[in-house]
């Protein structure tokens, strides 16, 4: 007889990991996980006539059965086949243009938290984008990143949406950590089915986005050198109601129950760990984040640059988000747990491990390289 333990048995199928790997998702923004040729289909950068940076994205709403725990599948509604949807990351003041195609089975939108004019809100019934199957291939030549938006913007937006298309365009503002989600009704269903993601607005400027926020030692609240290594991770707290009784059967950070327990997140001791934490849990009023054996600084909504909140536990309601910064100590290598501190959520999947090690140049650092691409 083996010794019993908490958690799911086996692992996510290799086929699912190719579609969505929670470890890859931690450091994937602006489609930086894709090979260059493939990436251009979904993301392109250019400079506008006014000299501003323009970031263009192709988002496609699709129904897909996703594996949320080993062997357990959920009929999800997704942006680009993944839950959470692709992380959008821009510097404050950058121009954002999202080309949106709805290939799902229901009307969907993308509603961004942040500043934007009314037509870009994606929330009113006549802003719903209607389903249009297999539009992407036929329309790709003139619709999507790099295409000229003028002919599309000249069309009546309502008739465009009836054909399954929309273009959202606005400036990335204000600096902070935001989110996006579908605002079709019934809202509860469209959110819990998987249509949401993180939207990071870095302080204005050029260069490595990770270096643009002030680097402050979380334990002393004193500045760190500008070149101090930083390890940035995106975590979206979510849940899945698999039997549709308005209660979640699975909780997780980034969808897959216990994934980071089986595959610990490797970090280097001393590096500044910066977690972009977004709560998109449906049905439960709150969710939480708890770190073992250390304390973190909380920058709520990422809008503040200094923090007086120093704790090992944070509570958030739905759509509330925060940037958490902490460091693991040199000389104390090991596996440090993080999880929701509602025991029920933790034991239903929202539990993981950081694996801290002292050595430079080990696998942890190499994974960290993903964070420098933008």
């Amino acid at each position, binding site marked *: 007889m083996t010794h019993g*333990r*908490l958690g*799911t048995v086996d692992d996510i199928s290799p086929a699912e990991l190719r579609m969505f790997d929670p470890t890859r998702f931690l450091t994937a923004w602006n489609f930086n996980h894709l090979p260059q040729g493939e990436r251009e289909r979904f993301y392109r950068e250019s400079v506008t006539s006014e000299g501003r940076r323009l970031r263009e994205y192709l988002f496609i709403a699709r129904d897909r059965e996703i594996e949320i725990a080993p062997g357990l599948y959920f009929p999800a509604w997704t942006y680009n086949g993944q839950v959470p949807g692709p992380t959008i990351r821009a510097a404050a003041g950058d121009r954002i243009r999202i080309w949106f195609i709805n290939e799902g089975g229901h009307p969907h939108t993308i509603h961004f938290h942040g500043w934007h004019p009314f037509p870009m809100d994606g929330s009113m019934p006549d802003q719903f984008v209607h389903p249009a199957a297999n539009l992407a291939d036929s329309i790709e030549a003139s619709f999507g990143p790099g295409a000229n938006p003028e002919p599309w913007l000249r069309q009546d937006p309502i008739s465009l949406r009836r054909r399954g298309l929309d273009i959202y365009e606005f400036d990335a503002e204000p600096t902070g950590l935001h989110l996006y989600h579908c605002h079709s009704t019934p809202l509860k269903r469209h959110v819990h089915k998987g249509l949401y993601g993180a939207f990071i607005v870095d302080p204005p400027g050029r260069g490595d986005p990770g270096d643009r926020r002030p680097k402050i030692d979380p334990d002393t609240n004193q500045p760190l050198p500008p070149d101090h290594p930083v390890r940035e991770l995106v975590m979206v707290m979510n849940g899945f109601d698999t039997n549709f009784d308005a209660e979640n059967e699975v909780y997780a950070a980034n969808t897959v129950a216990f994934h980071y327990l089986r595959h610990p997140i490797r970090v280097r001791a001393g590096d500044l760990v910066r977690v972009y934490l977004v709560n998109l849990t449906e049905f439960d009023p709150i969710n939480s984040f708890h770190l073992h054996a250390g304390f973190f600084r909380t920058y709520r909504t990422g809008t503040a640059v200094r923090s007086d909140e120093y704790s090992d536990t944070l509570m958030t309601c739905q759509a509330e988000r925060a940037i958490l910064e902490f460091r693991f100590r040199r000389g104390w290598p090991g596996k440090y747990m993080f999880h929701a501190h509602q025991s029920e959520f933790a*034991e*239903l999947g929202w539990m993981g491990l950081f694996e801290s090690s002292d050595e430079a140049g080990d696998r942890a650092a190499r994974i960290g390289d993903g964070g420098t691409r933008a």
Partner: protein
Amino acid sequence: MTARENQPGPDRHAWAGAPTWLLAAAPIVLLGLVVWGIVALRPVERLRGEGFPPIEELSIVRTVLPQPGLIELHVLNAGPDPVTIAQVMVDEAYWSHWMDAGRGSTNDPALDDLQPEKRAGEVQRRRTIPHLGRARVWLDYAWVDGEALEVVLISRNGATFATQIEVAVQSPTPDAGQFGLFALLGILVGVMPVSLGLLWHPLVQRLGAKLVTVVLCFTIGLLAFLAVDALAEALEAARELPHVYKGLALIALGLVGAILALFCAERWFVGAAGGSGGGDGRGGGEATPTGLRLAYLIAGGIGLHNLSEGLAIGSAFNLGAVSLGATLIIGFTVHNLTEGLAIVSPLARVRTELVHFLWLGLLAGAPTVLGGWLGAFAYSRVWAVLFLALGAGAIAQVAWTVLRQMTADAGWRDLLSPVGNVSGLAGGYLAMYATGLFVAL
């Protein structure tokens, strides 16, 4: 007019000359063709469409706690489609487990030698339970003695199937000690009280004819209570049964089956006695068993009832739903004492050898022991429903036999008008009802 139309009798068809075996086989062969057509053309799948979600229905038919730190579930797929168990939760926590649905265990170390893709496929295959297939699931879980537990199976598609363990106690294992213990229990609550009740025989013999009739009325009232009670319990147990077993149809089978079987047995009894009325020498045109034969019939019916009573006690003990205290055992003893009186009531005018009392006591009481064993070590809801229905049918039939035997002498009106007789009927029913209050499991 043709010659054919002139022919008298039934119409002559083309197949009139066909051999008999062909007439028997033709519909079956045609049915085979239809089945082949359904399998080949899949008309139902066309109706359901490709994206139609499968119908998943798992039933956790038995929960065993074989030892501290281990839970064993017996699972039946009672739905039309195969079901794959993805994960298992205990009290809202995912928990490590392994299972076997007849295609090998999921914790087989040989699985780790497979390529990841192949391993995932093989694990999925071993986790799949076909229609009406069975599986066992084991969890290494440190359950807490005396506390409640909930185990939930979650299927590949996210459907959940829960079972409650109301009070976690280690399940009895079928070793000699436990067998002995349940035998002792059966003797205490079944054999002993029934045998004690038989000791009323001398009293019954001393009673006048009118009082004997009152005692027989008491017996009918008592049997009526047992029949109603058994039927109610059968209906309750049938609700817990997976739909596929069609609980109500099963009850009808047991009920009617027991009645018909006992009618046949009665006929055989009476026939063996040379067509006479029975052992009391009263003889007569009415072919109803009387005297000793009737006593054996009553004992047999009560035995069937006690079998399901033993089953209920054993399974309640198994499921941890009962702590068998002295009160409960005394309750059963008092409850069953009156059953002995019921058995001797037809023997008022019969000289009976002592050995018959031994057999009567065993026939009525010993099934409690057997039921206890079955309930504790091999509990199955299907058998429980069937036994309860059989018991209800048997007792109803026996009550009817006693009534017929009595109305053979006096008419219905004469039987049911004296206050004494009606009081006897009500008294028998109420005595069982009142003593039954002590034995609620």
